[in-house]
């Protein structure tokens, strides 16, 4: 009698402990983020300025969107390598259309549709033709990048008075006499936050979200349980590609120009953000909020390395090492969890 009641309790205790263990990477990301801010503030004194924080968000809103986008495929144990290239192709087409005089609203819809089309292609290759996600999205990446290069290899600039300004116009929340102390925000940041909330709702409060976690845990079990795995897979890849197009809109509105080489390596930045944020690369565990945090950690590396006077060529090594540390941490955590 006593043993029978004791066992489930023990199991429950074990479960919570394991969940805690899996939280470690995310907690580590929080700690690292805070440490980076403190270190930056202590050494250079600019990192707690409202202006710095504003620009951190405004300049990296696109990365937060990409990180949310990348979280979905990684949660299922897949990956979407095409996000950077989709940013490039939609950016080039978007600016070309704007120059041709197409209204901004229509241009944005076309950009999103192009993104969705690439997502649909990737999902079809993965689900209908059993390609590995990473090969399928690698080929859509090359396809998108190639088409972008065919369209134009010049640096394209937005014409004046385009309605993309709506997204990039800064809204001052706290107006200080010193510009570096202004807290400002723009529509791009708001879009990123909406995407983040949307991702959270999708993953934690919808059936599709539960299916996504189930696929990451074990695809065959998810199928045997009768979950709509195929539909979820299509949702994932179409969503991530569409969000990449959205990131492209936010980015080009902010920068005002684009080239066919824009977004090279962004898929790696997005993967880095997701991994730093605590999502297990083999799928099944993680959250979008962690990914957004990971995106912030990734974004703060650039000003930090610059301020430290680290040569620019070291940045990629630092980022690479950082992802490596987090992946190893995940591996250790899951290994310990498995042993228990």
């Amino acid at each position: 009698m006593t043993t029978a009641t004791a066992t489930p309790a023990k199991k429950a205790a074990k479960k919570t402990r394991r969940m805690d263990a899996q939280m470690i990477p995310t907690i580590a990301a929080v700690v690292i983020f805070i440490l980076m801010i403190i270190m930056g503030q202590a050494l250079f004194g600019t990192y707690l300025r409202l202006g710095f924080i504003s620009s951190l968000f405004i300049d990296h809103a696109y990365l937060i969107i990409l990180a949310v986008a990348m979280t979905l495929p990684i949660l299922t144990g897949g990956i979407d390598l095409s996000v950077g290239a989709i940013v490039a192709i939609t950016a080039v087409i978007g600016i070309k259309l704007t120059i041709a005089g197409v209204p901004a609203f229509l241009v944005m819809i076309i950009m999103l549709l192009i993104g969705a089309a690439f997502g649909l292609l990737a999902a079809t290759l993965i689900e209908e033709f059993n390609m590995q996600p990473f090969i399928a999205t690698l080929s859509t990446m090359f396809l998108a990048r190639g088409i972008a290069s065919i369209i134009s290899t010049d640096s394209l600039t937005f014409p004046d008075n385009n309605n993309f300004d709506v997204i990039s116009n800064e809204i001052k929340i706290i107006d200080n006499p010193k510009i570096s102390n202004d807290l400002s925000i723009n529509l791009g940041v708001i879009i990123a936050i909406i995407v983040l909330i949307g991702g959270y709702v999708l993953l934690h409060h919808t059936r599709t979200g539960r299916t996504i976690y189930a696929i990451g845990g074990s695809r065959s079990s998810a199928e045997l349980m009768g979950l709509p795995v195929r539909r979820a897979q299509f949702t994932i890849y179409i969503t991530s590609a569409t969000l990449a197009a959205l990131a492209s809109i936010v980015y080009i509105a902010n920068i005002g120009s684009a080239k066919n080489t824009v977004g090279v390596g962004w898929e790696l930045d997005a993967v880095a953000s997701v991994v730093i944020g605590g999502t297990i690369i083999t799928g099944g565990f993680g959250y979008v909020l962690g990914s957004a945090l990971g995106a912030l950690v990734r974004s703060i590396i650039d000003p930090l390395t610059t301020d430290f006077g680290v040569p620019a060529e070291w940045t990629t090594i630092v980022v690479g090492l950082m992802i490596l540390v987090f992946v190893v941490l995940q591996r250790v955590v899951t290994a310990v969890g498995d042993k228990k």
Partner: protein
Amino acid sequence: MADKKQEDKNNVFKKLLSSNLTVEVIALVLLILLCTLFDHAFLALSWNSNTGGLAGPLITMLQESARYLMIATGMTLVISTAGIDLSVGSVMAVAGAAAMQALNGGMNVWVAILLALVIGMVVGCVNGSLIAFLGLQPFITTLIMMLAGRGLAKVITSGENTDASAVAGSEPLRWMANGFILGIPANFVIAVIIVALVGLLCRKTAMGMFIESVGINPEASRMTGIKPKKILFLVYAISGLLAAVAGLFATASVMRVDVVKTGQDLEMYAILAVVIGGTSLLGGKFSLSGSAVGAVIIAMIRKTIITLGIDSAATPAFFAVVVIVICVMQAPKVRNLSAELKRKRALKAQAKAVAA
């Protein structure tokens, strides 16, 4: 009885191999024909007495294919273990950068070559130990190495595109990339010899079988006494070493390393060559000869794009379409059709055997 079965199996395997190879060779010939149609001088060969070798579009194609041969061979072994090595392009840049920097620093050319090879192999070993001993995913590990390798190449040259063309005494390296052996490009000959050596290592010893068994089922192969970890470590080390050779070929032809462009996108070409060669991306059976011909096809496709005057910006899109078509053809859905036919044929043969 058992021997006979083995023989039969071998025959079937050989047939499969030859059929895939035939398709590849036909594709290669078709590409060459296409180019000849557009450029009538495409097949022309002339003797260049300055370099002591043949000259012509086909020869430059072979010269370029040497680097693809190298990375495709390494990639074949890695993919056979159900892994992937995305870092080959970056390793090429690292090895090239190391060699060029060493030459500029006044080092002996042989030491520079050795240094480049060692560095390539070390990067491969790092990949291998992370994947084999820490159990990280090959894909994410080599992706990190791809990122960090590019950075490493930049660190080695301090961000510059080091040019060693003015350095005296670098003839052996130059010859390796641009020289000729009996009129045939030296780098192509070296590459073929290395591929043959790897082939001998795999097929004349049990190595190849070990690699395949690890790719098919690591746990089962561990139980039969194979050490999957050592095999995994080894294939990534070999891949790194071969990528370093490719890096030497790529940089020595112009005696200059471009830290951004050397080896850029080449991991894609290597994967493509392996897939064209008939090795499944899911691991298991591999065909080095298939990948080798695949590598030559890649070089030929690039040559075709140039010959037909297609904008070089379109190259990635072109390759993506090729990959998609090949992978769709390999898909179970499409394959089931051909498998059905094969099964029927096998049943018929069995019925015949029973009747006899």
